[in-house]
């Protein structure tokens, strides 16, 4: 299989404009003759469904939650980037492009990233027009902040609820199209399979989560915007219903999965307090602007923090990275915290935490200013841990946060399966091996509002799409397949709970395919995962029936897919014998412990083809070429 990214020719700044002109258009009167399925109502899915509805297509839009407004995008706090240069501080489309490629550790496709930076400015305009209450300055202009270590202030935000406000904006546009009857909404539906007819994506099989019915939906094209797979690790900052199911089942139907090993770990989460924990809570990175990270110098020091004198504390980030100090990038901060814990110097009951101390900041700028800046974060921390961060240092620990990998797509956001388009976190496209803060929201909305409306039209206009109904054999086969899996799950009637097995899988991944990976740990994971999968199918307990709301059954299906997917994740990590971005192979580091890329051998996108459960997948490589931004070694010393 030859991977064709279909990147248009021409200078980078003109590619998208030229491409827009070269793409075919669907006649306005014909748009209503096309049906489009959009799976997902996050920023990517809702914006796509709304825009396509506005254009006149008939859209069917699906989500797992009871309302499209609850998609996981709602949880994003920090903000959204855009190259508006409103602050006159030297930002530009080119700079955002440059920062994103560099931040992604030179593992992304330049043309896609440039387009993303171009579209970023339109996103803000659209959202403002929708009534998204972005933060303002006293004069009435939009406010910006610098985020995630960027040297310009290009992040737009709406208090600590940016994702919520952007999603509600997209949701409202979506609901307007629902009212116009251009979009039909199917909430509480889970996609279980992709249906291909003559090699093209023509429909999906879903389970109606309230009635349990297996339903078939047909269309001229399918768009997946089903989010990331962070919950493979069991504990992550992702919402508990996040899953890889839709993407994975599309993968099993032939869509290539790209770079699954690129996972992002966020350094400032509230640490795990016990086995019962179901998810981890992220606290904004901005805390590191004023907090100082430290651990005791002595191993196994169990004294409470206030009894540890200053000279027995190790402010390890300040010590190791004098110029960036506590503000080193996410992956560096995370990995160092893990090193401290591995070294036996972690704090708290579990030893899996480091201190983030505000004592000096409180002394310097006073508790009032601290409260103004971080009041709600402090409150949240106190609610969860029952400790007062004004008095005792916070305990933080890294957690899985975002997944850069996803289904492989070309420049048009279409996978290798004709007609199957993938948007948002579910695709692999724009962030390379590491995503910059405030760029995921930008990507989801760019994909949905401004890319897919053009590229989908091109696909529809250039392909013959004969009429198909849900009686087609392909639909029957896929529906039977989905039904069979459900029957099997319910029939096991074993002893282990689904959560137990998921937690086990999470532990395997976190320990072996987490922040630091080695050949040995990855081989270990590849040995353990199939065993656990075996155990699942032999011994899982899925209570209840299939003909009504059965959350255990839903969960079991998702964990079943994770048990297959996890193997691919580990294999990709094993294959990539270099460190880059969120993927750190201990074998590949600079003398002072920095991630060391190997551009000569690994400057490619790893796109995997499914060959059967338990069978080795086939690797296809899309070579990456850098005409604009030349790869260099990062350094934060």
């Amino acid at each position, binding site marked *: 299989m030859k991977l064709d990214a279909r990147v248009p020719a021409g200078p980078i700044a003109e590619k998208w404009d030229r491409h827009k002109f070269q793409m075919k258009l669907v006649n306005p009167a014909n748009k209503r003759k096309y049906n489009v399925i959009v799976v997902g109502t996050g920023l990517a899915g809702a914006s796509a469904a709304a825009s396509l509805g506005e254009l006149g297509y008939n859209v069917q839009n699906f989500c797992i939650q009871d309302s499209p407004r609850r998609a996981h995008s709602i949880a994003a706090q920090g903000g959204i980037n855009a190259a508006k240069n409103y602050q006159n501080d030297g930002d530009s489309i080119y700079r955002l492009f440059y920062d994103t490629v560099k931040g992604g550790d030179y593992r992304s496709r330049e043309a896609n990233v440039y387009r993303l930076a171009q579209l970023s400015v339109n996103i803000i305009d659209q959202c403002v027009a929708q009534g998204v209450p972005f933060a303002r300055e006293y004069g009435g202009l939009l406010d910006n902040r610098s985020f995630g270590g960027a040297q310009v202030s290009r992040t737009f935000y709406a208090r600590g609820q940016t994702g919520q406000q952007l999603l509600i904006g997209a949701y409202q546009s979506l609901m*307007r199209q629902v*009212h*116009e*009857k251009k979009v039909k909404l199917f909430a509480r539906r889970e996609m279980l399979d992709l249906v291909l007819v003559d090699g093209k994506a023509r429909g999906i099989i879903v389970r109606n989560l309230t009635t349990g019915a297996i339903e078939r939906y047909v269309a001229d094209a399918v768009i997946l915007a089903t989010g990331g797979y962070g919950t493979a690790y069991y504990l992550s900052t992702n919402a508990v219903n996040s899953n890889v199911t839709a993407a994975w089942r599309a993968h099993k139907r032939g869509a290539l999965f790209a770079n699954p090993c690129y996972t992002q770990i966020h350094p400032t989460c509230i640490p795990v307090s016990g086995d019962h924990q179901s998810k981890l809570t992220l606290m904004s990175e901005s805390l590191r602007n004023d907090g100082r990270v430290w651990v005791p110098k002595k191993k196994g020091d169990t004294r409470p923090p206030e009894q540890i004198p200053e000279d027995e504390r190790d402010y390890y980030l300040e010590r190791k990275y004098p110029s960036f100090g506590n503000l080193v990038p996410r992956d560096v901060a995370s990995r160092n915290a893990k090193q401290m814990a591995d070294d036996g110097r972690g704090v708290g009951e579990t030893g899996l935490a480091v201190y983030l101390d505000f004592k000096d900041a409180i002394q310097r700028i006073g508790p009032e200013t601290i409260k103004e800046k971080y009041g709600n974060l402090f409150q949240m921390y106190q609610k969860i841990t029952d400790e007062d961060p004004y008095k005792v240092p916070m305990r933080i620990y890294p957690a899985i946060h975002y997944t850069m990998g996803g289904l492989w797509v070309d420049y048009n956001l279409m996978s290798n399966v004709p007609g199957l388009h993938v948007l948002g976190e579910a695709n692999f496209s724009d962030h390379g091996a590491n995503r910059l803060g405030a760029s995921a929201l930008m990507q989801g909305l760019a994909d949905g509002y401004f890319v897919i409306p053009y590229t989908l039209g091109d696909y529809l206009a250039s392909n013959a799409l004969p009429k198909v109904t849900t009686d087609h054999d392909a639909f029957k086969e896929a529906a039977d397949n989905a039904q069979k899996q459900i029957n099997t799950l319910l029939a096991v009637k074993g002893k282990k709970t689904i959560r137990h097995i998921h937690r086990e899988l999470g532990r395997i991944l976190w320990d072996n395919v987490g922040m630091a990976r080695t050949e040995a740990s990855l081989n270990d994971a590849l040995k353990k995962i199939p065993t656990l999968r075996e155990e699942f199918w032999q011994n899982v307990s899925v209570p209840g029936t299939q003909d009504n709301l059965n959350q255990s059954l839903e969960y079991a299906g998702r964990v079943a897919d994770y048990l297959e997917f996890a193997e691919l994740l580990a294999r990709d990590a094993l294959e990539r014998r270099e460190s880059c971005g969120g993927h750190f192979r201990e074998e590949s580091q600079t003398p002072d412990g920095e991630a060391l890329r190997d551009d000569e051998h690994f400057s490619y996108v790893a796109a995997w083809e499914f060959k059967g459960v338990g069978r080795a997948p086939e690797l296809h490589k899309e070579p990456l070429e850098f005409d604009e931004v030349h790869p260099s070694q990062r350094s934060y010393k």
Partner: protein
Amino acid sequence: MLIGNAQTRQGDRRPPEGNVGTAVAPMLGAKVNSSLMATRTRIFSSSVGTKLLIGVTGVFLFIYLLIHIAGNLVVFLGPAAFNKYAFTLEGNPLLPIIELLLLSVFLVHIYKTVRMFLGNQSARPVAYAKKKSAGSPSRKTFASSTMIVSGLWLLVFLLIHVKAFHDGWGQQYEWPAGGRDLYRQEIETFSNPLMVVFYVISMVVVGSHLWHGISSAFQSLGADKPAWTRFILPAGKVIAVLIASAFIVIALWAHFVAGVRS
């Protein structure tokens, strides 16, 4: 000029059909024209319109009660003053109109509150096994939870009250200087201890109705400004207590003081 202006303004409000269609279509879909008409008649049956009507009638009744208590306090000035006051009032040619107005306000108030109560009941067909107030800043009180009970009690009270004071169960007294001897009527009425007890209870009920009702009416009418609201909430309660206690004092005074004297 003025009339012309008003007419154009009227005209502006109803743009030509086609205009409405295109302007409203994106919002309301195909049913635009009919639903726009329907909206006009729905003004007062909608949940917000209902509140407005209850609020307006509630305020009206509250004001009536303020006037009523003021008038009734004249009773402490003795029979001459009180009967003269009543006589002047009854001589007012506008009185029948005012009474009619008052009656219709009552009817609207009662109709709307009862209808709303029934509607609200059906909005929660299955009750909670356990339900309690979440506390501050909730305004929920015993009074607010029993508005329909206190209201219906007041309805019964009013029937008896008007019967007692308007025609005195057929027993009327003449006042030599002209008109009825309303003073005596009142003393006679309150000479009956059962009547006094009924009145005192009813006045507590009035107080309860107004405890929530006064501030509630402001909120129903959309009058809100943090600065006012902070004042209206306690003020409503104080006034409710004052009105109820004033009426109670009259009833007790009539029974224990004036009644014994006469």
